[in-house]
């Protein structure tokens, strides 16, 4: 493979924290120019630690990481020039106005006063924050603060931006607005790496995904490729009395068309190929086994399914 368009690369990237906790375990990643790449995994999977190592904030225990060809461990100052970061928490400068947050960011990254002013104005316009320019950042809503942080992250035209759980804590409307913003940046060719534990977000936004858990890479590919690995075209979720669930899983596994049926929390998830008539067949089988079903739902395979296949557990835990 050519590396000309590779923006992020990690090799055997590992981070141990004191107390013997291995947060990231031998991670190999390669992110191409212009793609939105997602790190998908539950809380504590090592996503934030990985993003921290790529952005010079966390020092790896072993392994290597490059951004735009720069070794981030050996040359953090050079690396910081080519990255933009949107952290999980609001780190806007509370002492400055909305405009000044962007203006000084430009100055930190070497723009002269005129360019910094022009770029700040342009980004405020682009992110629909112009009418807030002179307000203190404390006056912004969560969604606006998040947009301003994205504007700040891209102001110095980094080779890639990192967003750590960008929509966690946002209301649905702000989440959609942020997705739209990221879509626009993607269309301009901006390389984006984001971490998330929302599978809808990963599915909607990302060109490619790395599914990680316990610091290890479990699967890598486009959302479509990952979903295709399940081999199923339909997911049937069945709810029954909790004490009958394990038995129900065994019963459903024997139903025609069902590839696999596993208990996940308070329900049984069956992966099905050839969905015609599946719901009556499920009811018939359960009835024959003397199990009363209280709810059945049918859906297409999702990244959730992929995650359950890989780990036997739910992403939302």
């Amino acid at each position, binding site marked *: 493979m050519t590396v000309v368009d590779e923006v992020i690369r990690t090799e055997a990237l590992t981070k141990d924290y004191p107390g013997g906790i291995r947060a990231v375990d031998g991670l190999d990643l390669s992110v191409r120019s212009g793609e939105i790449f997602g790190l998908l995994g539950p809380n504590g999977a090592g996503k934030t630690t990985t993003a921290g190592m790529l952005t010079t904030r966390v020092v790896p225990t072993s392994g290597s990481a*490059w951004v735009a060809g720069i070794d981030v461990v050996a040359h953090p100052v050079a690396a910081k020039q080519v990255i933009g970061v949107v952290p999980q928490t609001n780190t806007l400068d509370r002492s400055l106005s909305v405009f000044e947050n962007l203006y000084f960011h430009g100055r930190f990254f*070497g723009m002269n006063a005129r360019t910094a002013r022009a770029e700040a104005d342009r980004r405020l316009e682009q992110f629909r924050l112009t009418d807030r320019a002179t307000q203190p950042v404390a006056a912004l809503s969560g969604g606006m603060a998040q947009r301003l942080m994205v504007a700040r992250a891209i102001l110095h035209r980094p080779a890639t931006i990192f967003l750590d759980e960008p929509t966690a804590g946002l209301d649905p409307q702000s989440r959609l607005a942020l997705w739209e913003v990221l879509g626009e940046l993607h269309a301009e060719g901006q390389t984006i790496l984001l971490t998330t534990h929302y599978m809808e977000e990963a599915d909607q936004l990302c060109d490619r995904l790395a599914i990680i858990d316990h610091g290890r890479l479990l699967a890598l590919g486009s959302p479509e490729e990952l979903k295709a690995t399940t081999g199923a075209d339909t997911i049937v979720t069945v709810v029954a009395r909790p004490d009958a669930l394990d038995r129900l899983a065994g019963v459903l596994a024997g139903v025609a068309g069902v590839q696999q049926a596993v208990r996940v929390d308070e329900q049984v998830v069956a992966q099905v190929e050839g969905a015609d008539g599946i719901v009556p067949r499920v009811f018939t089988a359960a009835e024959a086994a003397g199990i009363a079903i209280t709810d059945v739902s049918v859906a297409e395979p999702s990244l959730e399914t992929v995650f359950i296949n890989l780990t036997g557990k739910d992403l939302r835990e």
Partner: protein
Amino acid sequence: MSTVSPPESPLVPRRSPAAASRVAFAALLLRDAVVLRKTLREFLPRTLLQPFLLVFVFTYVFPKIGQGVGGAGGEAAFSTILVAGVIALAIIFQGIQSVALPMVQEFGYTREIEDRVLAPLPIALVAVEKAVWGALASLFSALLVFPIAAFVPATPVDLQVNWLVLCTLTPLCCYMCGALGLFFGTRFDPRTVPLLFGIVVIPITFLGAIYYPWQALEPIRWLQILVLANPLVYMCEGFRAALTDSPHMSLWVVYPALVGFSALFTWQGIKGFARRVVS
């Protein structure tokens, strides 16, 4: 590993780390100056009121009501002794207020510091910038306070300025206090910051040779030795040498002590800073 050149940006030329650091350092100072300008209405009273009251009560009210302070030397000598102390106090307070307190906030509640740390300069320089900013703010407050100490007292202040000492000592003291602010800022969090005043600042100021020359402690020998651990002692003694003919500690002790404290606080400040932003 093959290398890749970053996409060329038309706006920001990729600089060498040294050049990028220089530019970012200057921009951080500019940011701090703009914040000071925006908060001048808070800065002025907080800087001026305490020294004014100190000078007013000790050197104006007391002589007027016939309740002299200053021991054998008398009231006039006391005004002269206090000049140095008031300026040193203004500097050390400013170091703490303009560096340590904002830093405790930025580390604690808001995590704003995390963004500053992503500016293209080494983390040690982000920390040193805070100390340098503290030095500039301290210098500014010393200039504001000097006229108060010189002209408010009811009894004449006998100024004998040694310009060479004044011009070298002032920046050194200001930097040391900026570094002290950096050190405190990384060691305290929002929960413990009241302790900073209760158990650190108050002893430093009460036992800092503000109200008396260090030599005058001779009769209490143990105290005289104990207070040598207090950086404010060297500042007050230094300013006494720079501004007056009062007895003072030898400058051969003052300068090395101030340089030593500056180095210690910078080193410990950088260490504490790095520990809080890099894991």
